[in-house]
Structures are given as structure tokens and as C-alpha cells.
């Protein structure tokens, strides 16, 4: 009976570990090189300087339109990834016993503010183009990083909770 109980506990804690691993990889995906650098490339003023200096009005207009489309795609992706990370955090939080109301509320508010900011930026980009909203995008990147770091803090809480939950059966953590 004890062996059976231990086995169930091991299976559950393994599932918990996998969940935490998934969340960590999701949040890591958030600010990894491709997305960050692509945002830098999309909003890079050097491209606009080049186009505005050497090309005709027709090309300048097409370029602005193209960059606006890319910027909106980038924002859409940032929103989707933030929502995915939040969803995974929610799933992990259900199993955690170390939840702090203040931190969770703060995280939810930050997340919604981030989504709101993304929506505002999308509207601004459609009206004013990608380069006019460049500075604001930098602020969104700042929010993205902040939300990410807050999620990391929370993951530590969830992590330690799952460690307590799993007992000493799994040995040292390798996350």
C-alpha cells in the first residue's frame, strides 16, 4: 500500500515538474533572441533613414505599410506569448500552496496592462506607422521584461511549492 502511494506521489510530482518546466521554457521563450532582435530590426531607424534618403515617395509609403504590418504581427505575437505564459502559470498555481494574493494580483494587473498597451500600440501603428511609435514600443519591451521577471519570481514560489509537494523522492532538482 505504501509502495503504491509512493508511486502515485512520484507520478504526480513528476507531472508537476514537467508543468514547471513547460512554464519556464514558455517564459524563457518570451525574451529570447529572435523576438527581441526582430523587434529591434522592425523598428530600426537606420532602415527608415536609408529609405527616406534614397528612394521615391511611392517606395517610402510601401515601406511604411510593410513595417506597420510587421510591427502589428510582432505585437500580436507578444500578446499571444504573454497570454500563454499566464495560462501556464494559472495551471501551475492551482497545484501550489505558496500563493501570495498580493503578488498574484499584481501579476494579473501587470498582464492586463501589458495587453491594453499592446492594443493601444496596434491602433497607433495603424494610424501613425511603426517608426512614429518606436519610443512607445521600447516601453512595451520594458513592460514585457518586467512581467517576465515577475513571472520568474512567482515560478520560484511555485517551484518551491512543488518541491515540498514532491518530497525527497526525486533527488536534486535539475531545472
Amino acid at each position, binding site marked *: 500500500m505504501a509502495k503504491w502511494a509512493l508511486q502515485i506521489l512520484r507520478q504526480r510530482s513528476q507531472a508537476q515538474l514537467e508543468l514547471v518546466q513547460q512554464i519556464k521554457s514558455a517564459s524563457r521563450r518570451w525574451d529570447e533572441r*529572435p*523576438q527581441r*532582435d*526582430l523587434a529591434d*530590426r*522592425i523598428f*530600426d531607424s*537606420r*532602415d527608415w533613414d*536609408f*529609405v527616406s534618403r*534614397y*528612394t*521615391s515617395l511611392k*517606395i517610402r509609403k*510601401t*515601406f511604411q505599410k*510593410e*513595417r506597420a*504590418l*510587421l510591427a502589428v*504581427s*510582432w505585437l500580436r*505575437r507578444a500578446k499571444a506569448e504573454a497570454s500563454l505564459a499566464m495560462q501556464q502559470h494559472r495551471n501551475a498555481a492551482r497545484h501550489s500552496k505558496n500563493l501570495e494574493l498580493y503578488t498574484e494580483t499584481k501579476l494579473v494587473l501587470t498582464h492586463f496592462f501589458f495587453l491594453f498597451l499592446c492594443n493601444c500600440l496596434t491602433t497607433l501603428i495603424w494610424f501613425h506607422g511603426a517608426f512614429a511609435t518606436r519610443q512607445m514600443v521600447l516601453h512595451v519591451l520594458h513592460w514585457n521584461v518586467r512581467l517576465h521577471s515577475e513571472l520568474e519570481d512567482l515560478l520560484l514560489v511555485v517551484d518551491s511549492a512543488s518541491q515540498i509537494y514532491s518530497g525527497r523522492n526525486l533527488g536534486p532538482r535539475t531545472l
Partner: protein
Amino acid sequence: MDSSATNVDIVPALTDLETRTLSRLPGEFSRLVYLASSRDCNSGRYVHEGLSYHFGETAASKAMALCHERVFEELVYCPLEQIVQKLHAYIASTCERPENVLKSWSHLQSYRITIPSDCDELAAQMFWSNVKMALMILEECQTMAPQNQNARLA
């Protein structure tokens, strides 16, 4: 592409491909077009007889896929001005007349199939957009050049 687990197996094939084949091609666009055209449209696998003979089909295909991703990434993170220069150099390196290449690339949008199979969606969009702009700029330069010449002659 999952290259981490099998990197050790493909290193000799990769080195061979880079030193013997890719280094002889001028510029990133030549390499990108070469690698993309070596890919079978149906299976997505890369075909290189010499490389397959020496290192096996799987290692050869993986090495080519990795090189394709590297070349593509280099172009994606290039500023537009450099893309224009690189594309210009590529067009000049082909045996075709520049206006024909420009027309073909613009109309058929053949650059769309030069992206690696497992590339990031946004990176692909960025690449397509930049190449489209570069083509427009080069086409404009083409139409401006005879006008300038005529003005100079007059």
C-alpha cells in the same frame, strides 16, 4: 530543426559543405538560393550527392538544413541597406540580365521559397518584406539609370 542532439554527427559534413561548396558562392543570397534549390519540395530533405556519398544522406541533409538556417538568419538581421547591396551583388553574379532577374523575382516572388523549412514565422515575414523592398529599390534604380544617362548625354 533539432540540431542539438546530432550536432556531433554532422560536424564533418558541415565543415565540408562550408569549405568546399558554400565558400565558393559569392554572397549570402547565392548561398541561400543554392541551399533552397537543393531541397526537395515534396519531402523537405536536402539533396547533395557528394556530401551524401561521404557522410550519409541524413548527415548531409541536416548539415545543409543547418547552413540554410544560418544564412537565412544572417540575412534577416541585416539592415535594409545591406540587403539591397547583397541582392544587387547576387543579381550581378548571375548570367541573366539584371532586369530579367528583377522582373522574375518580383513577379514570381521566387524568394518566398528560399526560406528554411523550420524558420520563425515573423522572421520569414521580415525577410519577405525586406526582399520585396530591396527589389523595388533596385527596380527604381534600374529605371532611373537610363534617364540619368540620357540627361547626361543631352
